[in-house]
Structures are given as C-alpha cells and as structure tokens.
C-alpha cells in the first residue's frame, strides 16, 4: 500500500457518535479507530465485571457498533477500539451478535493480556511508595498499557473489528500502519512517526478545532457540526491530517500544535510500549484548506517496561454546592463554608482531606483571587474525602442544611456521594505481559 487512511471515531468514552458515522460513510477509510478509555475507566469496568461476568466493556459499545458497522462493512473499513475495557472477549462476542442482527458477516477479534492483576502484588506504586499488596482488599484492577503486537496479530489474521482493553492510545493507530506497511518493530523512526499520527488523532476533535475556540480570538467555523479527523499516512510514516469536506471545525498549524503537545512531557521522549517517540523535530505545514502535513518525528528503542495503571478504592467523597448572589455574597459564602467545617468537626477523624471553594472566585486557583473584587454571585462548593460512606453522606446533608440553618439567601443545592476509585501507576517488564489475539468466527459457540 502506498498510503493508509485512518480516521478517529472517538476520543473519549462519551464522545459524539454522528461524526464517526460520517467518517464511516464518506471517509473512504481503511481503518476507523475508537479510543474510549480514560485512566480510571478500566477500574470502573472491572468493578462492573466483578458484579456481572458478562459485563465490563464500554456501555456505549452497542450504540457505536450499530451506528458504524453497516457503513464500515460496505466500505471495507476495519475497526480498532479499546472499548473492550475490562472484558474484551465479552465485547467481541457482543459485537459478533450485533453484526449478525444487522445481517453482516464480520470477523471480530479480542486482544487480551493487559489485565495483570494476578501478578501486581510485589510491584511498588509510584504514588504510594508501597507495594500493591499493601492495598489488600482495596485493590480493584491492574492493567498494562500494551503496544501494537496483539492488534497487529489480529489484523494479520484478517479481523474486521479488533477489540482490546488497555492499550497505549497511539498504539491503536500505530498497529494498522505496522500491519499495512510491514514496518519492522525496530524501525524506530517509522514507529515514532506512526506514534505521532496516533497521538494527533487519539483525541478526535481536539485536532479539528475542538477544545480550541475562543470567540473573537480563535474562531472556529461551524463548531456545531465539527468533523472528526483522518490521516493520510505514507509508507515513510509522514502524514496529512485533515477532515471531511462539508464538516465543521478546522485543521490548521495551530490546532495541530496544541494537540502535538497535549499530555506530552519531554517532547523528545514520549514513552510508548513499542518506541520512545521523538517529537522535538516535528514540522507542521498547511498544504491546503484543512490539510496539515506532519513530518520529522523520530524515535529510539523502547524501554522494555510497560506502564501499569492500578485501580484501588480510596474512601468516599461527599460533595455539595449552594449559590449566593447580590451584595456581600462572598462573605455569606465564606460564612457557609466556616459553618460546614464547624458542624463537621465531630466527624473530623473520618475526613482525611477537604476542599472549600467559592465557584466564580477561587475554585480553579485557591487564594489567587482573594481581594476586594466582588462578583455578582458565587457558588459555595465543599468536598471531603471520607473513610466511610456514612460520613460522606453526612457531608452532603450538612451542605443541604445550609438552606434553613445557614447564611441568608442560599439557593440551588446539589449534592453527590460516590466511592473514590483512585489510580496509581507502576512499571512492569514487557516480558511479564502475555498478549493474545483471538478471532471469533461466526460458528463460535460463544455466539449462541
């Protein structure tokens, strides 16, 4: 192949579906990639799987697959996604069932092996400085960020849809390039360039004008109908980033530069499972309307270590809000916060940390706005990390009680209560992670 067309169909679990359907129908794509897993999502999915062994994959899998499978099947576009979350096998079986309902004959593959919960105990977590085993029963999940080999294996085996769990986001895009172009797994320059393509596409609209608009300063045309990106990738790994004609949004040097650096630390050392990508010499050139040529990425040998996200239960969060407006609203908000802390003093032992904000004044950067400026309204917000559910419940109750027992003129209380699922990380030798690809055939007993 001289060129491969890859589109991004989702950049997070709740992403818009219509732009993905548009890409499936009009994109003439070789591959459509759905990236739907945030840091915490696998841990939440693991909890769902513990409650129901058939669950644990992306709750929007059905909607997304039903929306794009017909057009993808018609146009020969293959799908790659991490919607398998904590249960890629179940997600693949479900996708087979959907395809059958739609009258489509598709080969669906599950890539597994990222789940390393059974061998995480002795690893020291960066954030806690202690072994994972110290978490005891609080430990929920441990998933390694796998690279391209399992996905490539599935594509080599002819899979039309490849479903994995935790994988490095750029690997979802790098894998089809390795598959199509036959890049060697020590061709660090090409692997680095393919990683850049994946990095630019993995957040969907964030490279086509999403997360960019600032009215009058950075205007984006027809943001309401923003299109998702696609890349035309050459055999050497350089690419054009673009979007479909007639869609809203824009692809420019500026949108690509923002996304190039998004969630990057040292641009010369972007650590990935298969390569250390080097973006420090990247050039971006506008070569046509909504077309940006990307070149100059490179790479060096991977570290041989995989990042592992470890999910654990970390207490309960009680949170609530109430608004104050008009003259002296800041003082009334501060009085409300002081009352909360005084009233919660009797359960202080069960509160390990709290946070008191006046939204509109200091919720983003605490203390920074403290001064004489008086906003027309503020919204008191109080949140506490609690050892148990009952204390977190009590926090919300005290916030609601500011109606009758608090400062003058409070209104619009909301409150929430949830168990905190925290993520810590560690590194594991890649050799410890056994990735496996399995293609489900139509006749598989699992389908019935």
């Amino acid at each position: 192949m001289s060129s491969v067309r890859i589109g991004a169909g989702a950049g997070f679990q709740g992403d818009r579906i219509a732009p993905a359907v548009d890409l499936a129908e009009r994109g003439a794509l070789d591959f459509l990639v759905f990236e739907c897993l945030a840091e915490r999502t696998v841990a939440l999915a693991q909890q769902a799987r513990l409650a129901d062994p058939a669950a644990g994959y992306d709750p929007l899998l059905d909607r997304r697959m039903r929306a794009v499978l017909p057009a993808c099947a018609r146009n020969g576009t293959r799908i790659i996604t991490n919607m398998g979350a904590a249960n890629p096998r179940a997600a693949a079986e479900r996708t087979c069932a959907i395809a059958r309902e739609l009258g489509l004959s598709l080969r669906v593959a599950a890539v597994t092996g990222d789940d390393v919960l059974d061998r995480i105990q002795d690893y020291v977590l960066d954030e806690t400085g202690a072994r994972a085993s110290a978490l005891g029963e609080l430990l929920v999940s441990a998933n390694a960020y796998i690279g391209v080999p399992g996905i490539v294996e599935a594509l080599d085996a002819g899979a039309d849809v490849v479903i994995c769990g935790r994988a490095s986001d750029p690997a979802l895009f790098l894998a089809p390039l390795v598959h199509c172009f036959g890049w060697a797994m020590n061709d660090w320059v090409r692997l680095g360039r393919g990683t850049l393509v994946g990095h630019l596409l993995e957040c969907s609209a964030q490279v086509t004008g999403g997360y960019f608009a600032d009215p009058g300063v950075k205007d984006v045309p027809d943001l309401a109908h923003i299109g998702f990106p696609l890349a035309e990738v050459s055999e050497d790994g350089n690419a054009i980033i673009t979007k479909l004609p007639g869609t809203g949004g824009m692809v420019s040097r500026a949108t690509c530069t923002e996304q190039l650096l998004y969630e990057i630390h040292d641009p010369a050392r972007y650590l990935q499972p298969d390569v250390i990508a080097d973006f420090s010499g990247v050039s971006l050139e506008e070569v046509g309307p909504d077309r940006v040529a990307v070149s100059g990425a490179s790479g060096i040998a991977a570290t041989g270590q995989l990042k592992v996200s470890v999910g654990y239960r970390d207490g309960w969060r009680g949170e609530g809000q109430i608004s104050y407006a008009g003259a002296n609203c800041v003082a009334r908000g501060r009085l409300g916060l002081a009352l909360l802390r005084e009233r919660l003093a009797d359960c202080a032992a069960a509160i390990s940390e709290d946070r008191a904000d006046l939204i509109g004044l200091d919720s983003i950067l605490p203390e920074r706005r403290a001064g004489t400026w008086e906003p027309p309204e503020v919204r008191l917000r109080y949140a506490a990390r609690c050892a148990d559910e009952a204390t977190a419940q009590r926090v919300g109750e005290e916030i609601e009680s500011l109606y009758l027992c608090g400062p003058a003129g409070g209104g619009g209380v909301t409150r929430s209560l949830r168990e905190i699922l925290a993520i810590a990380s560690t590194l594991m030798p890649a050799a410890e992670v056994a990735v496996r690809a399995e293609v489900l055939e139509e006749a598989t007993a699992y389908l019935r």
Partner: protein
Amino acid sequence: MKLYEIAHARTGDKGDISNISVIAYRPEDWPLIEREVTAERVAAHVGHVDACEVTRYALPQLQALNFVLRGNLRGGVTRSLALDGHGKCIGSVVLEMEITGQPRGEERR
C-alpha cells in the same frame, strides 16, 4: 501586555502531572515568549512555587513551549477533590501573565 495577546495554550494531565503548552500566534513574537515565559514565572503565576517542580521544553520550529508541572493536581483527577480535577483551566490562567517588552518584529534563527 498579557501573554494572551500573543499566544494560545492547551492543558493536559497524566496522573498528578499537568502540562501546559504556550504557542505563539506569530513567529515574530516567539523570541519574546521564549525570553519572558520561564519555568520560574509560570510556577509563581499559578501559585505552586513550592508545591511542584516545573520543567520547560522548547520547540522553536513550532514557536511553542511546553511546561510540565509535577505534583500539580493533588493526586490527579482520580483522587483530587478539586472541581477541575484535570487542571484543564490552568492554561487560560497562564495566558493572563503580564509580559514586559516589545515584540522584536523579527524571527530568531
């Protein structure tokens, strides 16, 4: 002059680490941005002088800086009690930084 007048920004997070890109609209403003927007000034501006370690990386060919703020997110979005646990709003705050000096009207290099 505020940095906002000559640059745009985007903020991301990984665990307890924020990164903020600062990108010149015009190549001729790059030398001023490169000189004025130091790691120390960004740390002071967002009020995390002691709480975190700020590292700056420069990409001159893109007229862009990348700031990495370690320990900036109170444990990261999964643990933080903050309303904006990702710290996504911080980039807009960085653009409020006052810049002294005039654009040179020429591109370095």
